[in-house]
């Protein structure tokens, strides 16, 4: 029995963290955000060189053949550094979809390019994972897609898309397909742009070689664990910044970190967030080894980490006082990152309902 990280996993996480510290400091994040960039190409390249793009892709397709726990450790670092880089869709959800439901030819055509970081895949499954807003939804018929998909992930710079239709079928669409319109959605978080996709008789290849329904479920489970890990990393970064600020800022002749009112805010953040680490690890491990539990724990990890993330984001901002509210300190990049993670792929209320359904406590 060992519930912890291996030496290799610790080294992997450290090396991703060190790289991001170098290539994605706050000035770089700020620049990407100011430009409304699809993503920071230099950051993505550095991550790809470390193998992050192909972590979950089998070695026969040029990837590293790692597990979801490894990907969660990477995601935690991306959140910690509010990295303006694609990840959840292109490096996690798309490879799972292609491996689970793609044909040999589709896998051979795309997985090596995803593994090297050369191609980016957007994923449009919001209507199936978070609920369809009025007017949204994609219909598939005769190899053509029609309709609208909202909140597509890693969409801005995507070369291909994986799209879920209204019945849960999965489709592969190239970014330059005729009839496809890509609209940027501006969210609070400018480090990871969202997209709207409009389909007007767009040619699509179905991903129908395996069980597409099961593949969609796996993609969403994995995506939820990644978003939870991202919030874990972003949340701990905010706690550390709050502790550091409270150790420097003086009022009434003392550093404010010596006031119990401030210290207790920091203690509460740490005490609430640290158990989420164990939940994220377990969820990732369950995804790889315990299929019966995977969806339930993924839902719990997403919901609890989102709720805790919201508490940490506001409390860490308050510890910074007025400076936390400014653009100058840039704390808001973490605040907004956590805010976006909470809503994507199912809000806490929605995923808790799914957790109840999975246990037979509620009707679907």
């Amino acid at each position, binding site marked *: *029995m*060992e*519930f*912890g*990280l*291996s030496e290799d996993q610790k080294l992997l996480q450290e090396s991703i963290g060190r790289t991001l510290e170098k290539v994605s400091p706050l000035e770089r994040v700020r620049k990407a955000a100011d430009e409304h960039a699809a993503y920071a190409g230099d950051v993505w390249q550095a991550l790809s060189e470390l193998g992050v793009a192909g972590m979950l892709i089998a070695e026969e397709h040029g990837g590293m053949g790692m597990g979801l*726990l490894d990907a969660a450790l990477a995601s935690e670092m991306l959140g910690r550094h509010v990295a303006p880089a694609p990840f959840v869709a292109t490096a996690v959800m798309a490879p799972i979809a292609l491996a689970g439901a793609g044909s040999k030819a589709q896998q051979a055509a795309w997985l090596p390019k995803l593994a090297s970081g050369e191609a980016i895949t957007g994923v449009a499954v919001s209507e199936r994972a978070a609920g369809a807003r009025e007017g949204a939804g994609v219909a598939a018929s005769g190899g053509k897609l029609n309709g609208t998909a909202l909140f597509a992930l890693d969409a801005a710079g995507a070369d291909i898309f994986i799209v879920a239709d209204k019945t849960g079928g999965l489709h592969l669409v190239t970014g330059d397909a005729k009839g496809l319109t890509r609209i940027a959605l501006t969210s609070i978080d400018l480090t990871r742009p969202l997209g709207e996709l409009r389909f007007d008789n767009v040619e699509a290849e179905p991903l129908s070689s395996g069980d597409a329904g099961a593949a969609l479920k796996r993609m969403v489970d994995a995506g939820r664990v990644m978003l939870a890990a991202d919030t874990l990393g972003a949340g701990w970064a905010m*706690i550390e910044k709050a*502790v550091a600020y*409270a*150790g420097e800022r003086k009022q009434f002749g*003392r*550093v404010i*970190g*010596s*006031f*119990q009112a401030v*210290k*207790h805010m*920091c*203690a*509460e953040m*740490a*005490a*609430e967030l*640290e*158990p*989420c*680490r*164990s*939940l994220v*690890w*377990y969820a990732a*491990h369950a995804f790889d*080894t315990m299929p019966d539990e995977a969806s339930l*724990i993924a839902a*719990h*990890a997403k*919901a*609890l980490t989102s*709720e805790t993330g919201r508490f940490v984001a506001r409390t860490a901002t308050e510890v910074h006082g007025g400076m936390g509210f400014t653009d100058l300190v840039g704390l808001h990049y973490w605040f907004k990152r956590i805010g976006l993670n909470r809503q994507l792929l199912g809000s*806490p*209320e929605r995923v*808790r*309902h799914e*957790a*109840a359904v999975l246990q037979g*406590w*509620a009707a679907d």
Partner: protein
Amino acid sequence: MDLAYGPEYEAFRAEVRAFIAQHGAQAPRRFGVSRPSEETQNWQRLLIEHGLTARTIPKEYGGYGAEPDILKSRIIAEEFTAAGLPMGIANQGISMLVPTLLELGTEEQKKKWIAPTLRGEVVWCQGYSEPGSGSDLASLQTKAVEDGDDFIINGQKIWTSTAHASDMIFCLVRTEPEAKKHEGISYLIFSMQTPGIEVRPLKTMTGHAEFNEVFFTDVRVPKKDIVAGRGHGWFVANATLKHERGMLGDPNQAGTRLKEITDLMHKETMDGTRLIDHPVYRDRLVALQARVFAMQFHGLRLLTAAAKGEDPGIARLIVKLQGCELNHQLAALAIDALGEIGVLYEDSPHLRAQGAWQHRYMFDLGLIIGGGTAQIQKNIISERGLGMPREPKPAKA
């Protein structure tokens, strides 16, 4: 990451199960009363003999004498919990005094006290807190003044659980009034039958006297009954408190409660609808389930660190604060879901679970305060875990 125990441990699990199958019927039905009954003592002896409690305590002191193996301890706990059997006596003598004597006692003290304590024959209480010394325990004022071969003790202790049923007390007293506050304390062990000791029950909000006040008037204790020497009591107490904090906030208790509430919400109805079908209560249940899982997995993480001899750092410091709060919130959900029935108590008609949910809700608040208040825990987390500065001492007026 590997959640399987492996063949050696699965073989051990099979042994534990075989014991339970063979002897489970002999387990006492009532457990946890302050003085172990004869039935409980028999069960305790059987468990020690089979290495299922007092497992790592050396044979010469009445234990089983196994090498420490935290995974085997966990397997025992898992199997006994699954079978609904009591695991052995877990009073303050066994969980706090015995480890302290093993670490710091003289050979004579170990020989004399550990074995009968383990067997449940000698019951101990803890004399630490005083009316004026709670969170600031080191300010304690109970005095022990030298008189020949004895100390003469005067003062008062409070929050002394099981004092009325105890044979012995381990007690912090001030022996060196001139020394700095942390350096003037000694740790004494003496009989509760010593003349001059008065025990008064302290009734709490639950309606029960879970604690006592203990008054000392010219209580004469031989000097040799000190542990680790004069002025070292604070050091000894910290060694002991480490053992107590490990007991508070156990996530497996939260797991058991979660299961009870889940069953309750499936069984109870309001307006003919099961509570589990009420979306608001159900959402609260699922939200708490996530927290229980998180703390259980957190426990696995701490267990792994302990097995490897690693310091888990801040992860360890949060357990008391989070675990006690979680238990309290679980009790709150059960009360809320029960509606008006949730307020019934004592022996009322329509009472559910013998009034356990209200009792737990109140008693848990005591646990949030006791054993280091939530606020003291937050000081510890921020100062030791996050490296934040201590509160400066107020300037002397």
